[in-house]
């Protein structure tokens, strides 16, 4: 199947007075119809930046300095502002973390849904209103026919995020970029929203990029996962393999440092140090100063994504030509 979104070798730079910072470097991935790609990583890894680059909302002075973004086979990274604006909403829907800042407080949720649909679809006012009510029902808002005329402040946080989801999906985009859609919500509400997103992606055949720092959300929702570190993809593969049997030493450390709910451990695995600042990304592999398996090659040469098992990891341990090979512990979970 042809992918809906195809990101090739994406590079985003921020020119500053003290030199150019590279926020994303050589990021490549694709998402197929109906597929949910999870993007995880710690703060500053570039996951939200990747989403922003795709929807064309990079904060200036950030700019795409290399690579391509293809939506349904068509390049969208170099489109003029006006054309990109028409694609947003119609072809790409966006869900952000904070539902309160996403909604306009001065319009009823119905007006916002109707405006979005009429901008992008050829609908009469009556039809649009009917559909707006239909969408509110679909995202699980009780008494949708009455609530359609309510203002955002009359909804609770979880209900508002449902409205935002309806808003992102109402023009029936082919791709949805969801940036931390459940982070601002309480756990009991989180589960409801995750279930909803998953169902809608499947039913509508929408491709979804789900950016989050919560591995549990990814494990429950995503089909494939990309683990990001310092603006690069460290590992990408099917969710089961990346979570249960990660190959990149960073993914391994990341999964091990998540406190388990089903038992108490005396000493949690920790990755010493912190992610490098963008101004000081080390040469070679960005993870090499923190890596327990580091060897000479990692310090000079940047690793490509290499096939290993079911996933691909940017790690020299998986290059048969390297002088050091992955230890058994890494190869088999």
């Amino acid at each position, binding site marked *: 199947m042809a992918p809906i979104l195809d990101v090739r070798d994406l590079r985003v730079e921020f020119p500053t007075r003290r030199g150019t910072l590279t926020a994303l470097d050589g990021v490549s991935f694709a998402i197929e119809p109906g597929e949910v790609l999870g993007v*995880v*990583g*710690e*703060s500053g890894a570039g996951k939200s930046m990747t989403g922003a680059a795709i929807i064309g909302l990079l904060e200036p002075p950030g700019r795409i300095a290399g690579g391509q973004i293809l939506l349904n086979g068509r390049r969208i990274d170099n489109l003029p502002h006006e054309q990109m604006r028409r694609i947003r909403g119609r072809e790409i829907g966006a869900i952000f973390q904070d539902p309160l800042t996403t909604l306009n407080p001065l319009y009823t949720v119905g007006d916002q849904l109707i405006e979005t649909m009429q901008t992008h679809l050829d609908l009469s006012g009556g039809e649009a209103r009917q559909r707006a009510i239909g969408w509110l029902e679909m995202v699980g808002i009780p008494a949708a026919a009455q609530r359609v005329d309510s203002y955002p402040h009359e909804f*609770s*946080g*979880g*209900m508002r995020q449902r409205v935002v989801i309806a808003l992102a999906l109402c023009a029936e985009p082919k791709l949805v970029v969801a940036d931390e859609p459940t982070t601002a919500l*309480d*756990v*009991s*509400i*989180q*589960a*409801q929203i*995750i*279930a909803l997103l998953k169902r809608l992606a499947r039913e509508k055949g929408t491709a979804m990029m789900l950016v989050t*720092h*919560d*591995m*549990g*959300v990814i*494990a*429950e929702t995503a089909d494939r996962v990309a683990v990001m570190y310092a603006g690069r993809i460290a590992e990408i593969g099917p*969710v*089961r393999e990346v*979570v*249960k049997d990660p190959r990149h030493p960073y993914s391994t*450390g*990341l*999964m091990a*440092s*998540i*406190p*388990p*709910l*089903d*038992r*108490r*451990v*005396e*000493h*949690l*695995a*920790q*990755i*010493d140090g*912190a*992610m490098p600042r963008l101004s000081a990304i080390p040469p070679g592999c960005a993870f090499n100063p923190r890596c327990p398996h580091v060897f000479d090659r990692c310090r000079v040469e940047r690793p490509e994504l290499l096939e290993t098992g079911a996933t691909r990891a940017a790690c020299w341990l998986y290059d048969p030509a390297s002088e050091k090979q992955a230890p058994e512990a890494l190869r088999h979970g």
Partner: protein
Amino acid sequence: MADDIAMRASGAPPPHASDASPPRASGASPPRASGATPMLAAEELAKYFDVSRPLLQRLLAREGRRILRAVDGVSFEIPKGTTLSLVGESGCGKSTVARLVVGLYQPTRGRVLFDGQDLEKARAASEQRRRMQMIFQDPYASLNPRWRVRDIVAEPIRAFGLTRDNAAQRERVAQLLAQVGLSPLDGEKYPHEFSGGQRQRISIARALSSNPEFLVCDEPTSALDVSVQAQILNLMKDLQRRLGLTYLFISHNLAVVRQISDRIGVMYLGRLVELAPAETLFNAPRHPYTRALMEAIPDLDMTGRQRVPVGGEVPSPISPPSGCPFHPRCPLANHRCKAERPALIPARGTPETVVACHAVEEGRDGAAFTPMDQRPPGPRIGTTATAL
């Protein structure tokens, strides 16, 4: 609507609402560790906030005062050298308890005993104040950006007059920084030169500088990334072992809480609904809310099971439901739950747990009698959670 707004004269002691809180059963407070004085005891602690609109607007709209019951009758004890965690969703009152316990808020009702002494009296003496410190959630907001780290860490030493000798002070700061895994040379730097995890280490060093025995930690790791969170949790456990500290740990993350706690209290709408030893709580959660909370946490198991999310949302603490505050969302609720507020009493089957639930008391909660690890395979509580 009459229920929504508590009409009462300002200044009058808040009445014990109509849901007649029953007398506390003798087992309501956890058993004391062999008669020793607990580090901290909270007795029927309550904190109400007046969130009424200004008087004129109230008169025009003919509405009464609006009282937000952030904490509404919470009792617990923390034996010395142990960790009690309070968990719950936003708005459940856990952070308010933390602030009451260190004296940042005055309780509306009830009292706090610090090492057997009334907190208000204890806080009058700097020698007692020195013994308790707090670590806050946001390491970016809790350090003065214009002070060098050495001055930040030394401030409690100066404030409590622990030593006036500059050389001794410098040495103590260096030792504290080393103790939390920083370099003594870091004392010369400013907070902005550090990452979030390192800043939280500075906060911990500052808290330790007055040689406290009791630390209140309000979500100390929730602003941190998961690999850094592990570093801080390990550090806190290590310090507890070495210095014999007592912790009150506030968190919304059950997995984190499991790693660090001896006992755990689950809060809902300003009340404790369940209080149990950590392992008991996870192996045999009793209150329907506790069970729902554990069920809702996304896990890494990928069993593909259908999750049954808790329906509805947390009601407003300004107009809490009558009886048991959880009854509108509870699958086991009946007429008694709507009318009568349940007391925190030892649970059938797991007597070391105290739980405020009529269904548990009456034995209407079925499955919960079998501890988790003895249940037949099937849908089960998830394993690993989650936030990075």
